[in-house]
């Protein structure tokens, strides 16, 4: 019997709010309820249900960890966003590409197009090529204030190397426009000015909503009598405080798939595996490396805007339990369309008229749902051909996600896992863990804390010395985020040398993670 204090993990998704209570490594109870428009009511329902199932009092919970897709959904649907101003410190550079070039029109309509370019910025080696133009910055701040805009994204050239330039500029803006709510680009992105500025702008447009949502979640838990500290999951599967999340909602944008991947990992005890979430319409594959989701290397679009923001590398295949089956045994056509959430009405086994992959699975005896007799006349050859195709598509997806040719274990979550019955090429074992349907809430409940560095280091001091400094900065950041000092480890280290130039500057990305300190962040 474990003596660890119970923790509450919650996933506030677009459709469902899931809650789990965990004590140590054990899932004590789980509950699933519908998400409500104000998120608070759905949260109360789910938490109340899980507390009842666990026979626990709200006061006994030691920590609450929440993952939510509210912010990404709002941005993609262009709702609840605020107008923003983009202030860039770059002149005499960058003027040929003003802020928000290439943004979708429907988004510009909502957030406005208020760009300001002022003098200042640094080279890759940190030398300032131009002093910060204080007068121009003050003028911009006055103009923004006159337009009644509070949300500002502030971006300076090579800010990842010289974040202090943005910090100083923010002070100047605040001295003129005390109501300003400023996102610094160096807080939300790495090298690549346009992508980093975009991330800062997205963040600025979401800040007001994030305060509302976080307040709603806090109030709901307060009303239930939960007094434990509350954290939110971020994209890389580690935690941030609610205060931090209200300032940087963008860091929580992709927490959904991350928590699902990490939860699946936890439920099986695996550290390195492919996690496959087979839903009704798609199969999402993620890659777990040392307990964390692998992240994308290339630019990532959020709601039609290119960013270099870190996101889990998820491959979506148009294949799920509701995927349409057409053609004959000699020429099977799978989807890509699906009956989706109407599966229980439209699939043959549920009395519908659409032949779906679920019907094939039932006919093959892989699942016992619906009315089996409705699919008994399906041709054996067709069934076999469809199963072949399903397995091939999944195997191709696994192949694409792998980083070496060695076989890897696969963890299967989501209702569509009935589609698979055979061993999968390129895999060592297929796991189907208990509680797989609430894997994302479990993922939230087991989150750790992290610290990151992504900037240029000068290797002239020696590679080892420079890397050690980078690691130390990441460790300090993890400590500041609330990690137990002894538990901090470096989980990721990437070096990207500058090509085309004989220089000793190297872009280094480091990530350190650790267990959450009891009592939380400093």
């Amino acid at each position, binding site marked *: 019997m474990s003596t660890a204090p119970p923790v509450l993990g919650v996933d506030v998704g677009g459709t469902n709010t899931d809650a789990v209570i965990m004590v140590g490594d054990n899932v004590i109870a789980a509950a699933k309820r519908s998400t409500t428009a104000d998120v608070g009511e759905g949260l109360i329902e789910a938490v109340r249900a899980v507390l009842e199932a666990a026979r626990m009092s709200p006061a006994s919970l030691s920590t609450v960890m929440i993952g939510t897709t509210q912010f990404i959904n709002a941005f993609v649907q262009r709702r609840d966003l605020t107008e923003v101003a983009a202030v860039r410190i*770059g002149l*005499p*550079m*960058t*003027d*040929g*590409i*003003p802020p928000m*070039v*290439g943004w979708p029109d429907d988004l510009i309509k909502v957030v406005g197009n208020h760009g300001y370019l002022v003098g200042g910025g640094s*080279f*890759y080696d940190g*030398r300032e*090529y*131009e002093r910060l133009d204080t007068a121009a910055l003050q003028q911009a701040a006055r103009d923004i204030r006159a337009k009644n805009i509070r949300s500002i994204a502030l971006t300076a*050239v*090579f800010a990842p190397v010289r974040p202090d330039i943005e910090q100083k500029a923010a002070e100047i803006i605040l001295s003129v426009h005390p109501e300003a709510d400023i996102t610094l680009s160096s807080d939300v992105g790495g*090298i*690549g*000015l*346009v*992508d980093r500025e975009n991330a800062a702008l997205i963040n600025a447009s979401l800040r007001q909503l994030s305060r509302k949502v976080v307040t709603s979640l806090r109030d709901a838990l307060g009303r239930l009598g939960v007094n434990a500290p509350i954290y939110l999951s971020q994209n890389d599967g580690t935690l941030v405080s609610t205060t931090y999340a209200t300032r940087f909602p963008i860091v929580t944008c992709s927490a959904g798939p991350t928590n699902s991947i990490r939860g699946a990992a936890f439920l099986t005890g695996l550290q390195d595996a492919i996690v496959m979430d087979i839903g009704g319409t798609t199969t999402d594959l993620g890659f777990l490396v040392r307990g964390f989701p692998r992240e994308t*290397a*290339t630019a990532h679009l959020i709601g039609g805007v290119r960013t270099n923001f870190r996101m889990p590398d998820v491959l979506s295949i148009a294949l799920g339990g509701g995927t349409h089956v057409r053609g004959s045994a000699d020429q099977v056509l799978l989807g890509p369309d699906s009956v989706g959430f109407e599966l229980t009405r439209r699939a043959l086994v549920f009395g519908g008229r659409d032949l779906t992959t679920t019907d094939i699975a039932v006919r093959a005896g892989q699942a016992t749902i619906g009315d089996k007799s409705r699919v008994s006349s399906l041709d054996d050859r067709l069934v076999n051909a469809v199963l072949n195709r399903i397995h091939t598509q999944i195997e*191709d997806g696994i*192949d*694409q*996600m*792998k*980083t*070496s*040719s060695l076989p890897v274990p696969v963890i299967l979550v989501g209702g569509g896992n009935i589609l698979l019955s055979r061993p999968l090429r390129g895999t060592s074992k297929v796991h189907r863990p208990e509680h797989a349907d609430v894997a994302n809430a479990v993922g939230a409940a087991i989150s750790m804390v992290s610290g990151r560095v992504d900037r240029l280091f000068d290797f002239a001091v020696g590679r080892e010395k420079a890397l050690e400094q980078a690691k130390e900065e990441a460790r300090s950041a993890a400590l500041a985020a609330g990690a137990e000092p002894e538990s901090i480890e470096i989980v990721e280290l990437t070096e*990207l*040398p*500058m*090509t*085309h*130039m*004989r*220089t000793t500057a190297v*872009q280094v990305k480091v990530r350190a993670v650790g267990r959450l300190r009891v009592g939380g962040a400093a």
Partner: protein
Amino acid sequence: MYTITSDLDVRDMARGAVLLGSGGGGDPYVGELYLRNQLMEGRCPTIIKASELADDAFVVSIAGVGAPTVIVEHLVSTLTLLRLLEASEKFYGRKIDALISAEIGGVNSMFPLALGTRAGIPVIDGDGMGRAFPHLEMTTFGVYGCAATPSVLMDDSGNVVHVHTTTNRIAEDVVRSVCASLGSMIFGSFYPMSGRQVKQLTVHDTVTHTLEIGRRIRAARESQLDPVKGVLQFLDAPDEGRYARELFNGRITDVLHETRDGWHWGRVLISSGAGVEPEFRVEIQNEYLVARHHGRTVAIVPDLIAILDAESAEPLTAEMLAYGQRVRVIGYSAAPIMRRAECLKVFGPRLFGLDEDFRPVEELVAAP
């Protein structure tokens, strides 16, 4: 003569420029955004054929020189481009009638269009490489006697450097050093030429080619056709002296990158999954240099090698390659002018340290 008026065309050109980059040349994203912004402000690029030029017209190449990591932060300054134009006209002592790209593959396809659009100067439908190369001297302009200098270099702070060297190879070294001293990103005017020279020394129609390639890929995607086949059908036009072959279809099993002496070296292994060992290998030196199938050369510089995403036919630069990607590799003949003996002495296989002679891709693929 024609003008580009649609945002979609600019994006197509950028995609086509990546394919012609043969893996290198830098991501044209920054240039693409610049042009899209110009279109939004109501300015459109004008493209003219070399044959439309008067023999005594004055033409220069505009190029950005620098590290890809730096370009994505410094972006492009309109003021710098206009100042460069002004300083160049003053330096050369005459009005510039048209601009030309020295390198159509990658980001330098875009900078002459950027300045041309902003300043209202036409851009020649052609360039000096028909692809991307790592050095300034590796152009048809240079091979046929045009000097890369005198040249005007400028950074965004207004520093101006005039370069006048005895050879184009030395110009390459000097320009690279100046660039390093000025924050690793500069713009310059190179290869001042007469209209008559442009007609004789250029790889023709390559600007239009980037647009057509990008369009083909997009159209094939939208019509649910195989986009790789779509682009192959377009590229392979023996009547016009162009040959394109699909060299391999497989999955990347290993990518090696390293930086030595400021250049990007590497190799990529691709496997069909049939055997244990990957059958296909592409050597990288900033660009894709040589492709070998079971050790046998099937395409070699200056012919182009393009690695495309197998599904979308999106051309991939060397930096974008990663383990597990499904890719299709295309070999594409360099323009006939690029395959002449005098050109191979400047950018043939041996100039990249390869111990073999150039052979055309259409012969290599047909050989037993």
